[in-house]
């Protein structure tokens, strides 16, 4: 079952965005794990130096260097699937600038001197779009990098991008830079990056919780990207959803407190009247919450993009939880 279709076959660069607090980095990490199967090699890139990826994978802070941080799942029903590899890279504009100078002008050592003189701060300040171009440039370079001979070095690249409020500007690098630099090498570079980002090889996924503001922000973000020719809106990942514990009909009905008390007593619990009343309260609040979630979910569905839903993991996110989320994404066809 290694060659099954997914919703994003052909996409090599997965950009993941979402409102702050929605678990964007967690979803990006889970997506990278999900993509790393059947011997595939995936690069997970963190665009804003918070070292969230290192913490998720329980690793020391990542340097500006691609290093292996996890092994993707093999498939249980196919003993031969060896799983794949997840590499990670934390990009900072400074490292990306040195990279750029090295790649195009072969002047990395000069770059180090310039860094000490404050060049990076200066250059990125002078051209506000510059640091975005450098970061997206690194991501697109990794997505297109080829091995000697043939084939790509990475089968997929997952970019943990800035929050939704800034992602349009972040990705629309060419337009940002063109306001400043009408000609020149950085303009050429920006145009190259834009060609990759605005191609079917790139998809931008939105992470949202089932709450009003994150949903609104995701919908606004989707509308914004749809307005940019060539940009491909990807899936909507609903994160931290609380699964309903009963059917919608059962939740609508007022809980039968005496009946619950009787059942609780049968299960060997004490003071079951009080307990049943307290549990019924929790159930009623849950019913209200499920209703709210349903409303937000249908708002997201109305956007017409594929939807994936990940459950709330109350114990907190560790490697085991990431694998669980990755399996969910795989099962739902995201990877």
């Amino acid at each position, binding site marked *: 079952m290694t060659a099954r279709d997914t919703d994003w076959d052909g996409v090599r660069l997965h950009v993941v965005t979402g409102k702050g*607090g929605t678990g964007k980095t967690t979803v990006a990490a889970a997506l990278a794990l999900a993509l790393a199967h059947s011997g595939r090699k995936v690069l997970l890139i963190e665009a804003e130096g*918070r070292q969230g990826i290192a913490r998720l994978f329980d690793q020391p802070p990542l340097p500006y260097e691609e290093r292996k941080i996890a092994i993707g799942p093999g498939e249980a029903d196919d003993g031969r699937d060896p799983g794949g590899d997840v590499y990670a890279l934390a990009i900072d504009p400074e490292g990306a600038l040195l990279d750029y100078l090295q790649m195009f002008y072969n002047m990395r050592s*000069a770059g180090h001197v*310039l860094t000490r003189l404050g060049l990076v701060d200066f250059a990125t300040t002078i051209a506000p779009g510059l640091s975005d171009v450098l970061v997206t440039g690194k991501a697109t370079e990794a997505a297109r990098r080829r091995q000697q001979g043939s084939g790509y070095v990475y089968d997929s690249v997952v970019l943990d991008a800035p929050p939704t409020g800034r992602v349009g500007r972040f990705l629309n690098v060419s337009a940002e830079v063109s306001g400043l630099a009408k000609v020149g090498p950085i303009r050429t570079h920006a145009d190259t990056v834009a060609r990759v980002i605005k191609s079917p090889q790139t998809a931008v996924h939105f992470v949202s919780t089932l709450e009003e503001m994150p949903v609104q922000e995701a919908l606004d973000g989707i509308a914004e990207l749809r307005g940019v020719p060539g940009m491909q809106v990807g899936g909507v990942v609903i994160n931290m959803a609380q699964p309903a514990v009963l059917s919608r009909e059962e939740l609508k009905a007022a809980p039968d407190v005496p009946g*619950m008390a009787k*059942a609780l007593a*049968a299960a060997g619990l004490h003071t079951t009247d009080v*307990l049943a009343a307290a549990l019924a*309260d929790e159930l009623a609040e849950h019913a209200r919450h499920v209703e709210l979630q349903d409303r937000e979910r249908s708002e997201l569905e109305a956007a017409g993009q594929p939807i994936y839903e990940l459950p709330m993991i109350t114990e*907190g996110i560790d490697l085991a939880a990431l694998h669980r989320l990755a399996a969910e994404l795989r099962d739902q066809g995201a990877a």
Partner: protein
Amino acid sequence: MNPRLDMDRIIDDRRTRIIVCCGSGGVGKTTAAAAIGLRAAERGRQVCVLTVDPARRLAQSMGLTSLDNTPRLIEDVDRTAGGSLYAMMLDMKRTFDEIVEAHADPVRAAQILANPFYQSLSSSFAGTQEYMAMEKLGQLRRSNEWDLIVVDTPPSRSALDFLDAPERLGRFLDGRLIRVLTSPAKATRPFTKVLNAGFSMMTGALTKLLGAQVLRDAQTFVTALDTMFGGFRERAEATYRLLQAPGTSFLVVAAPEPDALREASYFVERLDEERMPLAGLVLNRVHRSPGTRLSAARSLAAAETLDTIQNDAVAPAEANGCTVAAAALRLHAAHMSLSERERRVAGAFTSAHPAVPTLEVPALPADVHDLAGLRSIGAAMGPPLEGGSPGRAGVA
């Protein structure tokens, strides 16, 4: 146990003139700031809430279709205590333009406003928003029209950017490097030949990187700005001093999540280093522990027992009671472990900062839609009601 943050004492104290709400993105900072502003206004203060968050819903919850760069009076605030509430949203480009227009003659101002470098800097430099928020805060404070200003901080990648960015922008606009650009010969005279070589290498690299035209725009811009008023850095420093002055209170807002509390921790330490007055931590969106303390383990065990009983049940009503009770027990177990986890996460913060006054605000079932919603958050920040929640004292 940490002392309880006494919000009413802070907002009732007439010497409190500025409250800064900071914290990482997505923790409910803006809503907290609006709730504090409303509570202060209804307790008799003349309040202006300055937000940088363009959330339409926040404006709507206060009865406005949208917020703009001018403070607007919020109707339907209870004014019996003599207070009032205004709200505005920072438009950073507009604020920057206003500074230029106020300090330059019309011709020069028009020149600067049309400069592509200025346009880019004023609308998208990462530090401009923070800088302009501080500029606006200074303006509002100096106007003396309000006796309390509540401000939330921009949604930076990290809460600390807010403290550093004004410095950075000030340093940049006023800095040595930009002077090198504008008049290389003069600025480099005191330096050694080695440094001199470094600088020319740098301008060379910049030209390679950006193209000569960008550098020319930057030079024109800086020259124009330089003659207009000296010392962007001085303004940044004045803002910094304003924040250190008595009368300013910092509130760190966090959700009971490891990342948000880690940011909060850094921020608390940083404020301490900068001798900025920290009032306390608002732990927002805390899930209340359920009405019954039955443990997660016992709940799950009982739910399993019920699964078995249910299969043997004869009467449908009995089976239904079992299904509902088992579901409720599983739900309760999840609530208990969530609440336990939040307690553990918050405990890591409070044990590292045992002296920081702390206040818990319970998670609401839905987003805030109106003043009533903001008012209830404000009430949760007030004194604890008899019998515990909302607003349990401190963090156990």
